[in-house]
Every structure is written in structure tokens, then in C-alpha cells.
């Protein structure tokens, strides 16, 4: 398969008054076209920093990243932010069309795509509402619709479901999978939930903290479409879960001692 994202020896150092912290230490990875990759690690391991560098919100200190662009008129990447990522003074509809409007696409096209994804995430009746009137789950649906509507080369997701209650989380995870399967976008998804990573991803990268490094890679080839019930019942998934858990435990212990 074609490589969509290649990251080579990416290093990020935060420097402050004579003290420096290495957030990312020579991280390298290749991500294939259409692959769903989850990055799992304890908080403070630099996974968000990695994503923000890919999202062009942070500069890298050393190394190289490359995202292959297939279509000229497509944006390179769009990010689904953690909760609070939708803009409170724009309605649901305006939030979803935000990226398209920023690119000044023809009105007709903006409307079509916005309507399509509003309907996809089941918010078409709520499109005139402001975010304050929405529940947490609905807000994240808006965020997801906004990113997909923008039709980027790759999607970046920064723990989008971390603040949701468990029931809502399950529902949104499955919804995300069904939208993703339709578009087959390349996704990098950050999470600290092992279950979430196992349900969503094709491949899981484990990160260690300080310095942030990829310490293990796990292929997750459970057949798709996936359901939470199936994943829970699957023996292999359970083994993966234990494996990841042990690895992360070790890392956390190491950073403490």
C-alpha cells in the first residue's frame, strides 16, 4: 500500500529558561493510505504534541514529516479537537461548514456537503441551534462532521471522546467507524483508552513518556465492520488488551522510579 504519512526522526524539544524537555525523541513512522492508526500512551507522553505538529499548530525541532497530497484542491489535514473544539458563536450548521467556508468553496457545494454530513451524524434537525444547547455527545458529532465535510487528505483526532460518558462514547465510536468506512480516510487518533484503540484501529502505536518515543507497534486485524460486543467477546482482542496494559504499566512504573 502507498505511504500516506511519513514521519522521520521527528524531535520536539520545549525550551524554557535553561531547562529543556524532550517531548518527542526521534519518532519515526509510516502510515499507509486509508489506515486507521491509534496512538496510545499515558498523559504527558507527547502524543498530543505529535498530533499538533502534524496539524501545523506547533513547529518541529528536528526531523521531517511528509503528507502525500493526492488532490490539489484538498486541504492536507483537518483536526477533530477535544471537547470545546466547536465555536460557541456559530450555529451547528455554521460550525460544520466552517472549513469549507474558510476555503471559499462555491456556496452550492458548501451547502451540499454540510447537509450531507449533518444528516450523517444525525444533527440535521439541530442545525440552527447554538452549541450551548447541545449535549457533549452532540458537540463531538459536530466536530466530527466538520472535519469530514472538509474532505482533507488525512484526519487527526485528539481524544475526541475523552470527556463523554461511557454510553455516549460507545455510540459515537460506532458512528465514527461507519462514517470512516464510507470514506476510508487516513486517520491518526490519539487516545489513552486501550479499548477505544482496539475497537477503532488497524494498528496501535504505544508511546512512552519523557522522552516521548514509540515503544511498540501492534497490528489489529480484527475484521471490519466491527461492533463493540464482538470486540469484547474476541479472544485475540483480549490478549492484545493485556499486552498493551502490561506495556503501559511498565512505562508508568519506570517514569515514577
Amino acid at each position, binding site marked *: 500500500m502507498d505511504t500516506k504519512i511519513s514521519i522521520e526522526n521527528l524531535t520536539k524539544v520545549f525550551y524554557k529558561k535553561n531547562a529543556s524537555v524532550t517531548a518527542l525523541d526521534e519518532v519515526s513512522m509510516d502510515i499507509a493510505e486509508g489506515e486507521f492508526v491509534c496512538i496510545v500512551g499515558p498523559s504527558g507522553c507527547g502524543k498530543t504534541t505529535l498530533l499538533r505538529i502534524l496539524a501545523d499548530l506547533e513547529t518541529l525541532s528536528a526531523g521531517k514529516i511528509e503528507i502525500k497530497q493526492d488532490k490539489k484542491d484538498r*486541504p492536507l489535514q483537518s483536526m477533530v479537537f*477535544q471537547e470545546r473544539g466547536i465555536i460557541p*458563536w456559530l450555529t451547528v450548521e455554521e460550525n460544520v461548514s466552517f*472549513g469549507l467556508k474558510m476555503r471559499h468553496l462555491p456556496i452550492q457545494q458548501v451547502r451540499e456537503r454540510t447537509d450531507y454530513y449533518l444528516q450523517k451524524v444525525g444533527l440535521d434537525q439541530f442545525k440552527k441551534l447554538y452549541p*450551548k444547547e447541545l449535549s457533549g455527545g452532540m458537540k463531538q458529532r459536530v466536530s466530527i462532521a*466538520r472535519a469530514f465535510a472538509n474532505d482533507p487528505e488525512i484526519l487527526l483526532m485528539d481524544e475526541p471522546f475523552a470527556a463523554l460518558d461511557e454510553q455516549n462514547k460507545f455510540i459515537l465510536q460506532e458512528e465514527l467507524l461507519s462514517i470512516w468506512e464510507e470514506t476510508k480516510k487516513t486517520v491518526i487518533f490519539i487516545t489513552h483508552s486501550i479499548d477505544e484503540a482496539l475497537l477503532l484501529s488497524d494498528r496501535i502505536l504505544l508511546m512512552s513518556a519523557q522522552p516521548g518515543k514509540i515503544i511498540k507497534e501492534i497490528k489489529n486485524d480484527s475484521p471490519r465492520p466491527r461492533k463493540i460486543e464482538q470486540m469484547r467477546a474476541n479472544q485475540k482482542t483480549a490478549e492484545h488488551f493485556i499486552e498493551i496494559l502490561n506495556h503501559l504499566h511498565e512505562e508508568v512504573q519506570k517514569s515514577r522510579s
Partner: protein
Amino acid sequence: MRPGENMKISHKAVEVEQQEWKKRRLKERMKQMLTIASPIILLLVWECLSRTNLIDVRFFPPPTKIIGTLFSMIYSGELFHHMWVSLYRIFCGFLLGAIPGIVIGLLMGLYSPIRHSISPIVMALMPIPTLALLPIIIILFGIGDFSKVVTIAGSVFFPVVINTTAGVINIDSIYLDVAKNYGASSKDFFFKIALPGSLPVMMEGIQMGQAIALLTIVAAEMMGATSGIGYLIWTSYKAFMLQEMFVGLILISFFGYLFSLLLRFIQKKILPWR
């Protein structure tokens, strides 16, 4: 369990809650009554004390007399003359202070070099009451309307500029990230993020500016003016026509209330997302 089975208990439970709800409603109404009653009672007490000569009628004429004076001043047209003059000055002064305040505030919020060069000047000038500059303002701009307008503009400018700057600076950084990630141009950033995002805090500054404008107009018209509500209060006081003076005070209080209602209404209209 079948539906009817629990009827008795649930019926009683509803009744208990209904009683509770009625009690709560009664309490709410009592509080509303208090809000309306307390100023009325104050006026009644004033009226009685004044009529029975327990307080000096020369300083505190009974409210009914003041109302009478108010009506006779309305009939003679004197009241409207002073009112319009003051309203005109407040309105012009408010705009002349608020508009540059908003523009400069937005620039200061958006561009940190501008903020760092202007904010020390703003901070240095802010504590100086514009009224203290009134003599200079009168020398520069004469005793006509314009000197009052300038005085009000000077007082309105500061709360508006400071709040607008703060409004822009305090926009949650995640919205800046969203704008950047989705490729907003600087024009789009201004109109979609900076301006609407700073609006709530900016409006608070405008609300404050409005209150200060009213305080300022009265004082500004006491010096070097020949008309206006402040002039009315001051000359009535000097001629010891305290009923007329109280009419002036009532006007100021009325307009203060009216303006803040008006601004609150505008705020609701332009900030539907709050």
C-alpha cells in the same frame, strides 16, 4: 407491576410535590413583591415625613410635589429642551468615545506590538478623571455642545478600549487553533473569531461606558453650560428651587435605567449564543 397498582402512593407523592411547588412559587412571588414594594414604601415614608414636617421640606419636598413640578415642566416645554440637549450630547459623546475604543481595542487585542506600545499610554491616562480636564477642554473647544461631547467621549473611551482588548485576548486559544487548522485567512479570522469572540466582554465595557457617560454629562453641564439636565440641576440648586433639582435627578435616574435596559436588549439580540 401493573399501572394502577401503585396509584395511591404515587398520587399522594404528586400531591406532596405540588404543595412544595406552590410554596416555592409563593416565595418567588413574595420576593418579586418586595422588589416592587420597597421603593414605593420609601417614597411613602418620604411623603409622610415631609408632610408632617419631620424632615425639612425645603430640602426634601414631598414626592407628590416633585411629580407636580415634573408635569408643569413637561407642559412648559422646559423639560424637553434640557432633555434633548443632554441626550444629544450623551449620544454623540458616547459614539465618539465608544467607536475609537472598539477599533483601538480590537487592534490592541490582535497585534501585540500595538498592544505593548499603546497600553502604557492608556494605563497612564485612565486614572485621570476627564472632569479634571474640563477647564482645558472648555478652553480648547468652547462652552458649546462640543466640549461636553469631548468630555463624555473621553470618559467612555477607557472602559470600552480596555474591555475590548481583554475580550480579544481572552478568547479561548482552542478557537484560534481551530481557525488556524481550518485555514482561516486573517480577514476571516477577524470576522469569524476575533470580533464575535470578544463581543461579550466588549459589551460589558460599553455598558460601563454608558453608565459613566451619564455621570459625566451632569458634571460637565454644571460647568460652562447654558442648557441640559446638569445645567437644570445646578441652576435650580443655586436658585434654591429644589423641586426642579429633584426633577433633574429623576430624569438622570430614569435615563440610566432606560439605557441599561436598551443595551441589555441589544446584547441579547447580538449575542444569541450566550
